[in-house]
């Protein structure tokens, strides 16, 4: 009964599934895919801390982690073990239940967003006869799902600051939530250009459309810039990291968290970065598609990984170079600069699409 009900739900959201006769087997296959993809994503997230420290260190003319394992490769594991061993402290003025759940609410939506990123062609069958599929959930409204989840992530920030019972943390969370909500708007608008060009909210369709024409970074260059900058602001990274600025509010809204809770907030930030990077790689850089047909022997997931690693490198590069925006400058930048550019981009793209103007193989 349960499996039939699930099948109905799945059908109702118009997921395109490859006609399973047995809903139970389909469900088990999804579960295996989910297990594998989530583990891969979490390992990438853990090693991101290592990669970031190495990139920053090399820019600063030093080495970064070198002692834990060869060239510091065991550093994330060392960090995790340390965090797990620490004591979980709750401040006296904190609201205990919400304090406990806030970092979890910050972390889970970002992880859940990986359900719709295609690692290979979702219309195909996947490995081992369908047991490891290239995408966990091939939703027709993929992009809408992503944006909705990032909105839920804001609750995590607001709750963790407010329930800490600490003036600094409250200040940090207020600023952060205003910042995230504003930049989400420009993020959505920036994305719309690609959606208009591809004609569908399904991420796999966008990749296939890019394979047919060209990577959307070129026609949608301004949309890419708007989306990338808004993505950096969404995830509270430098130069938009005033809410957690160490030098000013002493780590802002996640000040009071110790042990694994801090780990969740901290890694949640990295997962958010991964989501933005994966979305950029899928929507602007062609996702799992190889740049030219003679390179197609390299499998799809590797291409996606390379593209999103490249974008993560840009994230680190920007962090290591630029100073921080002050809060009023940050908000002014969003509303006075990015928002008009994003709107103009959407308008022009829509006009071109409506008039059917295609520049040869642009489209």
């Amino acid at each position, binding site marked *: 009964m349960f499996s039939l009900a699930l099948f109905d739900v799945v059908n109702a959201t118009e997921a395109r599934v490859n006609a399973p006769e047995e809903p139970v087997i389909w469900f088990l296959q999804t579960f295996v895919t989910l297990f594998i993809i989530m583990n891969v994503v979490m390992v990438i997230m853990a090693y991101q801390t290592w990669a970031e420290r190495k990139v920053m260190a090399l820019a600063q003319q030093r080495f970064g982690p070198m002692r834990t394992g060869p060239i510091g490769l065991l550093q994330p594991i060392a960090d995790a073990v340390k965090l797990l061993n620490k004591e979980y402290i709750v401040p006296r003025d904190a609201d205990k239940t919400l304090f406990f759940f806030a970092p979890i609410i910050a972390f889970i939506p970002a992880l859940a967003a990986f359900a719709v990123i295609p690692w290979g062609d979702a219309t195909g069958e996947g490995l081992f006869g369908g047991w490891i599929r290239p995408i966990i959930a091939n939703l027709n409204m993929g992009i809408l799902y992503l944006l909705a989840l990032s909105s839920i992530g804001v609750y995590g920030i607001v709750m963790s600051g407010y329930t800490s019972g600490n003036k600094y943390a409250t200040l940090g969370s207020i600023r952060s939530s205003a910042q995230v909500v504003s930049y989400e708007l420009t993020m959505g608008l920036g994305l719309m250009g690609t959606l208009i060009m591809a004609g569908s909210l399904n991420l796999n369709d966008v990749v296939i459309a890019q394979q047919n024409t060209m990577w959307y970074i070129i026609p949608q260059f301004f949309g890419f810039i708007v989306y990338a900058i808004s993505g950096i602001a969404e995830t509270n990274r430098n130069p938009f*990291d005033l809410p957690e600025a160490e030098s000013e509010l002493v780590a802002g809204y996640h000040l009071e968290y110790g042990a694994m809770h801090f780990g969740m907030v901290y890694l949640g930030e990295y997962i958010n970065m991964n989501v933005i990077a994966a979305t950029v790689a899928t929507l602007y850089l062609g996702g799992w598609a190889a740049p030219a047909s003679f390179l197609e022997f390299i499998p799809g997931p590797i291409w996606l990984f390379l593209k999103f690693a490249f974008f993560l490198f840009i994230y680190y590069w920007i962090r290591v170079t630029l100073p*921080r925006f002050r809060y009023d*400058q940050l908000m002014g930048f969003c509303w006075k600069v990015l928002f008009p550019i994003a709107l103009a981009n959407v308008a022009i793209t829509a006009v071109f699409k409506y008039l059917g103007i295609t520049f040869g193989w642009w489209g």
Partner: protein
Amino acid sequence: MQNVMNPVGGDNFQEKGDKRMRLSLGPHHPSTHGVLQVIVDLEGETVVRCDPVPGYLHRGTEKLAENKYYTQIIPLTDRLDYLSPFNNNLSYTMAVEKLVGIEVPERAQWIRLILSELQRIASHLIWFGTHVMDIGAITPFLWAARDRETIMDIFEMCSGARLTLSYTRIGGLMSDVPPGFNEKVHEFTELFHKALKDYNKVVSKNPIFMSRTQGVGVITAEQAIQYGLTGPSLRGSGVEWDLRKHEPYMYYDQLDFEIPLGSTGDSYDRYLVRMEEMEQSNRIIQQALAKLPSKGPVKADDPKIVLPPKELSMSRAEEMQRHFYQVIHGFPAPVGECYFGLEGPKGELGFYIISDGSPRPYRLKIRAPSYVNLQALPLMTEGRMIADVITCIGTIDIVLGEVDR
């Protein structure tokens, strides 16, 4: 019992039920450059009142100095402005030399000049690294630290210590510089010239940096003079006053260098003034290296004040007795008082000594530039946003060792 957050004499608004929030950028803070507490009253994001509370690093240097001989006070002076200890040593030693009336030989003065300018560069490099790091760019701090390592190596070569040098003595230097000093300093000046170009490229024209510092913490020239600011904080407001040019000491009148001046008195101007000062210091060092006499004594010839050379005091009885006597009994200074100020990296660093004829000073007052400059913080921050408080603390370049003594 009064406490810092509700001081007697400050207004106690919490009873009136105000919407203001009183925040203590407490002594434990990554950006207050040491243990400085700043109590800010905020209305939303705007600072309504700003009250710096120094005193967490007060060690009673002036009281200790009343019980020590003149030479024994030199290590105490190291720990005042601990980012430029040679300048503290130098200022104190020159004040005592002025009081006692002793002439320092030429080679010693040139070496003092070179080391003083190197120390100025080292202090400005730390200022640069930490100020830019507070504004958010974390990389230049490590580049500045790397360049400072070369300067620390030069100091270690001369005196044995990287930071708390205690290299000067009344009448000259502790000892002559080892061979290889000239080459190492020359190598540094070449390297540093290129490094400064890098720093200017990355930071000075960065639009985010400029928008964070322009118009922030403005001090007009009249206000600067009223508040007694000296050093780059004064020159950033456009007032032309540098002790090296206007009251020259050592051999600065024989050297060719310029004094950078700002125009508007905001943080960006003070930043540019200090960056240019580093370039000019580099120039001074190059000229001084050329003029440094290759041989000569590094201690004055006065037998009452200067200890005899080690070879003699280890072999001849007369010198050994003199060495013992001077170390145990000190040397008497004439009755009188004397003030000497030199242009340190943060402003006019002065020592005022009142002597009553004994080998210990009767009163030693340290005129610390950071202490006087810090008074201007409320002027710069009231009415602005809280993120600017950190920028303003960084731009007046304070060191708590000096503020608190």
